[in-house]
């Protein structure tokens, strides 16, 4: 297998000193769907912007389809497709005109463009709406049109930045179907980003978990979940002073089947355990002599959420973004909600 993306030490420091992407290295194999999973502000879009030659890395280098993004940006642009998180389709134009414009940007001769437009319209199932203005489209249809724009020059490698951002769950599944289709039917390699766990889990062959500009871990979803090894017991207390709870937790921590305990606001205490379901009665027994009562307790297989929590130390959540980025996010939301 050839590597279609190779990134070494990519770093982006924005004016003002913010390190959006911090020395990341990874490679993507031909034919795979590779995902960057991380919260808002993690540096996903910035990474894509570097790989698609929109911004210059501060340090590091990368090759896409064998082309150096710094030395040959023009060739790189020809070889790759890019669908931004912004839903950048032109409302005032029809679907067909949007694609015609895109074909023009890629210097595709007129006759060929007509053929290709028909082809990508079929691919995203928008043929019968092609003559309508985009302002009459739903959020999902706009996204499909935007993806079609990214396909017009038949790139070998497609960058999808948060392809289902702001869409409802049904539409998101529909978009997943198209993404899978691209990989299976036309053997396209896809580099995508997302902050949805389920999306990364069900679409991606391999995932890099990125947080604050750093790749925390990189592997297949199955391996990542397996790597936690242990299963998870989540529990909360319904009775007990905080110091009593602390003492009880201190005790539980030292039980031999407990590997680790974390606390989060959303989910309460989370213990990773080595003895499966029998850990639940064992925990009850262990705190029997303490003046506390467990209110709820459940035992689960590790999910990607747990993997994320394990590697980053926090749940996926909204990060603060600068004003213009915030404005852009709201614009995307407004357009997808149509």
């Amino acid at each position: 297998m050839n590597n279609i993306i190779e990134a070494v030490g990519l770093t982006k420091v924005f004016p003002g000193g913010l390190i959006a992407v911090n020395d990341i290295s990874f490679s993507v194999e031909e034919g795979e769907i590779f995902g960057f999973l991380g919260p808002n502000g993690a540096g996903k879009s910035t990474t894509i912007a570097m790989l698609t030659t929109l911004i210059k890395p501060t340090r590091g280098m990368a090759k896409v389809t064998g082309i150096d993004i710094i030395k040959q940006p023009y060739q790189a642009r020809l070889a790759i497709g890019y669908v931004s998180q912004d839903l950048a389709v032109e409302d005032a134009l029809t679907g067909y005109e949007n694609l015609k414009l895109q074909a023009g940007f890629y210097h595709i001769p007129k006759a060929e463009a007509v053929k290709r437009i028909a082809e990508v319209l079929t691919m995203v199932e928008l043929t019968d709406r092609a003559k309508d203005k985009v302002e009459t489209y739903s959020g999902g249809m706009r996204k499909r049109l935007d993806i079609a724009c990214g396909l017009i020059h038949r790139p070998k490698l497609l960058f999808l930045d948060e392809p289902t951002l702001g869409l409802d769950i049904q539409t998101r599944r529909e978009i997943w179907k198209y993404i899978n289709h691209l990989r299976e039917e036309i053997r396209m390699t896809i580099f995508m980003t997302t902050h949805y766990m389920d999306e990364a889990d069900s679409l991606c062959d391999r995932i890099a978990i990125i947080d604050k500009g750093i790749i925390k871990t990189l592997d297949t979803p199955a391996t990542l979940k397996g790597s936690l090894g242990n299963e998870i017991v989540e529990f909360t207390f319904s009775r007990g002073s905080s110091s009593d709870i602390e003492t009880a937790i201190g005790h539980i921590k030292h039980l031999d089947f407990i590997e680790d305990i974390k606390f989060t606001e959303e989910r309460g205490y989370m213990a990773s355990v080595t003895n499966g379901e029998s850990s639940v009665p064992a925990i009850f027994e262990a705190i029997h002599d303490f003046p506390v009562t467990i209110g709820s307790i459940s035992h689960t297989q590790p999910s990607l959420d747990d993997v994320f929590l394990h590697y980053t130390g926090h749940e996926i959540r909204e990060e603060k973004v600068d004003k213009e980025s915030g404005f852009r996010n709201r614009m995307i939301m407004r357009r997808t909600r149509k």
Partner: protein
Amino acid sequence: MTRAVIFQDIYWVFWREFKKFTQQRARILMIVIQPLVWLVLMGNSMSGLTRNPAAMKMLGTGNYLEFMTPGIMIMTALFGGVFGGTTILWDRRLGFLHKMLSAPIHRAAIPLGKLMSIGLQTMLQALVIVIISLFLGVHFITGIPGVFCLLLISGLFGIIMGSISLSLAANLKSIETLMAISNFLTMPLMLTSNAMFPVNAMPVWLRAIANVNPLSYAVSAMRTIATQGWFFHQIWLPVVALLGIAMITIGVSVKMFYRSVS
């Protein structure tokens, strides 16, 4: 990259801008109504004042409407161009700029295509004004070739204002700031020019400003063509000056655009 490709890229950027322009019904309606209101109201209210020999001498024509039509054309070009930079900020905000930049198009094609669209829009607006003024009885002394020159000068002026606006846009993050600056620029430019009032009727200090205001160059060349005839000695200098200014402002806007996207 060959030269042919950049022209193709400019064409597609232009195509998008112009297509969007033609879709904006409300704006097109305004383009017709605004000069109509100006010409009818101003023309009527001023004609009483100007129907005396002294005023006629200052205006260079007995008809205030004839005096004012080139002024209105340039004013429209000024407004059409000065907000041209906002399109690039919208493109940035809505992500279309990145879409264009990730395509293999020549980067200079983005500002140049936008300017071309601004130029053509301004010319069309000027044409609307010509048609309205013909209905109101304005006579263009140099006929169709003269009118064509008026349109070209309007377009050129629109492009100058557009490129200044694009240069500002490249240095600003927010659309609101650009709108504020553009609004701030237009009134003083207008009022310190000969667009509305003859220079001879101005106090000396204002006359000094009006004489260096590029808006005045455009208006005086146009006014000569519209009301006096082909007096080339009065036309070529302002036109050459405008062309020179356009070359500089276009060059600067392309440079600034490059800088803002690198």
